């Protein structure tokens, strides 16, 4: 049988995979991009809460494809399949991956995040290491992302803003709800510095993408204007126009295969619609299936040359899984007690809140101590109508219905608006947080599913609570009621990294500094699994930047072959 041969075969079309597809095709190479999900176009994306937020339509049915989640309870690890809990670790399985659905809050990591160990020293029970590259190496790629993906923002000098090679963002900030007047005033009264949140969202038209039309439904939804900087819009569509990209949607990769120790030869695929199995060969392979699924694929590709999985010669594969530490909180602004802005402004849908705080990214205070803090992001609570209504169906522990429920919903929806904050701090890498496969649990394709051992270090909780307290002060100053926060070691599954650490030493890392698997010369990993520590910001800007950096190395590699 004739197996098609490409210069590069990429598994996963999200932020990590598409960045490589873009760079390689622009450099003239033939690339196969394999994506297990469907290819939804701009025109397919609507604001359908049922389809996008309440059912598994763009993620697999958990009965067919699931994860095992192991969590420590009373000194025992309790394992729960996600089909049982409903806690899905699929984040968006369509061309462009979960980047289609992101809210687009974008932050660079800080230069000190690259050498956390050097700056703060070890923390007991945590495997903190310095990165094998510095901020200066990544900076040109962070800058490239600003124009290529499209990042809007306004640079406000702040001691903890990472240095920039360009004075400001290529696009002005997205439009803001007038609530920022109240927010900024409240921050200043507390001697805090409000910053404009950079967003991977176009505030102005470009030649092939339209500016944001402020749909009010951004996170968890695909964008029908092309404004959101998804991998599909910003990278895959332009890569397709080179004529060098073969995009295979509905193509699930089950294994990477080789007849030698040093090289991968084929990707074993299955068409998820026809269930036909086939192989694709390439000179170079790039895995970017999102951190936990990339690790699973490397484990499931074990062979006589790599009996414990690819990249696992030194038992490092799957170790040091990280999420984003922190949590979220909320307060409610009531039109009745509103200060400084009118109820009409508060209730106006569409425009963003767009404010974040970096004041405690690093904490060095006589009273509080010296430690790495994090970022606080402010936003309106998600506009989803069904899920908002469902939050108000109980009163005093009993389900409400009839007139009482209708009146309550009407009051809640028309007279108040919830302000949410999200805290991002480091999820320290530890020996207790890692990924394996579960040999007794197979997916619909007959492959062992991923088992995620999830464990958060108590230090993360301390830092998260510290930041949440600061956020709470602001909500109080704004006049919010019913304020609460929830900092926990139960992570959001959409920010996931680690498991294939990069580093100089093959005994302690899976990938080399260029994200190539140490002992396999033509295998790279370009999603967030390379990250030894996560910084205290959402990951996607860093995923894009690093994948673009690695893509340049792959271009050089292909030229050398």
């Amino acid at each position, binding site marked *: 049988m004739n197996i098609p041969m490409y210069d590069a075969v990429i598994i996963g079309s999200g932020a990590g995979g598409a960045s490589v597809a873009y760079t390689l095709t622009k450099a003239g190479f033939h690339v196969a991009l394999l994506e297990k999900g469907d290819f939804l176009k701009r025109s*397919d994306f609507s604001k359908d809460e049922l389809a996008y937020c309440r059912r598994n339509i763009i993620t697999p049915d958990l009965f067919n494809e699931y994860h095992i989640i192991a969590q420590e309870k009373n000194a025992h690890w309790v394992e729960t399949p996600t089909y049982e809990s409903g806690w899905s670790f699929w984040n968006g399985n369509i061309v462009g991956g979960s980047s289609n659905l992101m809210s687009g809050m974008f932050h660079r990591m800080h230069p000190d995040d690259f050498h956390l160990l050097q700056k703060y020293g070890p923390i007991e029970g945590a495997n903190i290491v310095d990165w094998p590259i510095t901020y200066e190496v990544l900076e040109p790629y962070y800058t490239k992302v600003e124009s290529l993906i499209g990042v809007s923002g306004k640079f406000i000098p702040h001691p903890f803003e990472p240095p920039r090679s360009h004075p400001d963002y290529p696009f002005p900030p997205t439009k803001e709800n007038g609530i920022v007047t109240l927010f900024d005033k409240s921050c200043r009264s507390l001697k805090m510095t409000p910053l404009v949140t950079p967003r991977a969202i176009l505030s102005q038209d470009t030649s092939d993408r339209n500016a944001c039309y402020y749909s009010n439904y951004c996170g968890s939804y695909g964008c029908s204007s092309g404004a959101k900087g998804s991998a599909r819009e910003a990278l895959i569509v332009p890569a397709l126009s080179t004529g060098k990209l073969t995009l295979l949607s509905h193509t699930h990769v089950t294994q990477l295969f080789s007849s030698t120790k040093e090289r991968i030869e084929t990707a074993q695929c299955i068409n998820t619609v026809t269930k036909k199995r086939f192989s694709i060969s390439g000179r170079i392979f790039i895995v970017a299936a999102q951190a936990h699924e990339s690790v699973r694929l490397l484990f499931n590709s074990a062979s006589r040359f790599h009996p414990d999985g690819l990249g696992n010669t030194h038992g490092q594969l799957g170790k040091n899984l990280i999420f984003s530490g922190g949590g979220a909180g909320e307060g409610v602004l009531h039109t009745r007690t509103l200060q400084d802005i009118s109820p009409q402004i508060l209730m106006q849908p569409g425009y963003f809140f767009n404010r974040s705080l970096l004041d405690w990214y690093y904490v060095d205070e006589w009273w509080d101590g010296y430690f790495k803090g994090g970022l606080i992001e402010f936003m309106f609570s998600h506009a989803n109508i069904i899920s908002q209504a469902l939050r108000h169906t109980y009163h005093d522990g009993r389900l409400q219905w009839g007139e009482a429920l209708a009146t309550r919903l009407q009051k809640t929806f028309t007279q108040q608006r919830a302000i949410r904050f999200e805290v991002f701090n480091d999820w320290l890498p530890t020996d207790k947080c890692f990924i394996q496969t579960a040999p007794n649990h197979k997916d619909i394709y007959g492959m062992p599913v991923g088992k995620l051992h999830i464990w958060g270090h108590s230090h993360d909780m301390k830092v998260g609570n510290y930041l949440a307290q600061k956020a709470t002060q602001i909500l109080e100053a704004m006049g919010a009621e019913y304020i609460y926060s929830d900092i926990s070691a139960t992570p959001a599954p959409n920010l996931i990294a680690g498991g294939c650490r990069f580093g100089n030493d093959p005994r302690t890392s899976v990938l080399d500094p260029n994200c190539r698997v140490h002992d396999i010369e033509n295998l790279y990993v370009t999603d967030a699994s390379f990250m030894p520590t996560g910084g205290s910001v959402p990951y996607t800007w860093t995923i894009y930047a690093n994948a673009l950096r690695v893509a340049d190395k792959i271009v050089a590699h292909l030229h050398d072959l």
Partner: protein
Amino acid sequence: MHRRHFLILGSVSTLLPALPSSHPASQKLAFSRVRETIFAVQKHMFPPHTSLPSAQEVNTIAFLEETIFHPSYDKDIRAFVIRGAHALHQKEKGRFHIYTSEKKEQVLRRYEESEKGRMWLSRIMILSLEALLSAPVYGCNPAKAAWHALQRNGGMPEPTKKYIYG
């Protein structure tokens, strides 16, 4: 206890009758026997003359039926919806739908005292609010009356096909 354990264990406890067979045809039959009871519960939850459209007006039961039998819907929850309705139906000897509003309130509040009853009512509430507040294409919100009552808009573009693919 995890959701699925609860749903499945429920079938062997004495409070609720056994799970209807997971075969769609027999589930359809089982559903048809309790359709009236479920709709009566929805009508009690969303009566006429409140600020929201009533269950009767927008025919929430049609949405519920279509939803739970859609392939994207969790098959165990589908069975649970039917099973919980059977329990209520049997307890009230098939008369729930003809009770007065006061009697219905009494019965449902009593049903709510058991954990399974509470979970079942909560599930009916979820399915009813999904009906009332989902996009017009799903059939129960054609004039967006519920959205207007809450002064909300579902966002543009509105879906033109159910569950993306129609």
